[in-house]
């Protein structure tokens, strides 16, 4: 199989994966309706999923735990959380966070 054919087959299959996973319960929902209790629980899914995406990025490096407060990613991440809690401004949070990240990285 040529490299290009392989890449395109991968892409077509991945497109199917996107459609199937994202519309799974939209399509099956009537045959397998979810109880109200489960739907209530799903309210917490977004915050959990986003926290789970963020935490390894700031707390690990190459699969290992990094708890050094001087680590640029961890320090800037903690400051960003605090700035967001206080300011509720995404722009301010990003500016302060990137500033601290860059500063610590260059020191």
């Amino acid at each position: 199989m040529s490299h290009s054919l392989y890449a395109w087959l991968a892409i077509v299959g991945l497109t199917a994966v996107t459609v199937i996973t994202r519309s799974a319960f939209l399509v099956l929902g009537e045959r397998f309706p979810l109880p109200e209790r489960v739907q209530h629980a799903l309210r917490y899914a977004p915050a959990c999923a986003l926290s789970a995406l963020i935490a390894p990025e700031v707390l690990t490096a190459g699969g290992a735990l990094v708890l050094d407060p001087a680590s640029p990613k961890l320090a800037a991440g903690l400051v960003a959380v605090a700035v967001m809690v206080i300011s509720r401004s995404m722009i301010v949070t990003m500016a302060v966070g990137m500033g601290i990240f860059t500063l610590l990285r260059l020191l």
Partner: protein
Amino acid sequence: MKRSALFGHEPAASVRRESFADGLRAVAPALFATGTWGLVTGVAMIKVGLSTAEALGMTLLVFAGSAQLAALPLIAAGAPLWVVWLAATVVNLRFVIFSAGLAPFFKRFSLARRLALGYVTSDIGFALFLSRFAGTPPEERGSTHQVWLFLGMAAGNWLAWQTMSILGILLGHAVPGEWGLDYAAILALIALTVPMINSRPALAGALAAAAVAVLGAGLPLRLGLVAAVVVGIAVAMGTELALERLGRAAR
């Protein structure tokens, strides 16, 4: 508009237009994060050796940042196709959970439209939509306003993602890794997440999810991410129940 409503005519076109615009406004603050992820993903596709045409095809068809980022090293290594597809499926499992949350809102649509609505669902779109409408009573779910607001959010998200991803593909070879672009995307995610943690159960769930994700960071196929979401939801629900009981005991 008020008049026709008085006479019982739903002013459908203007409701659609206004709801779509509401959706665009609701998603706007998140688009910086989306765009940054798109740029990072676009650059990454070129860096692993996809041709410009393949990378453009991938972003325009697959339209799934984290699944694409998970699949890229496997494609670069020439892994069997089923492994590439399985890895992407596991990374995308969270969307199966999301689709269950969205199902009550879209059940009146045809199969083709439900597939299309599913296809344009994003992490951020889902999170913003459900945090806004999760409290709606079952009989009020799936209104024209809700559906067109969802479409507005999806349109803004799609445009920001594709524009920046294509920019990343075109700039691919010129962007140095030291810019820390990937970290800017993380900061943007932090800014999105903080306002969602608006109750003690949500805080407990988010902390538990973060802990499990860190512990499971070494697991293959980003299974740690899936475990983290499941544990996080369970902890949030447990906390909610415990707080209810404490509240009853105090009374």
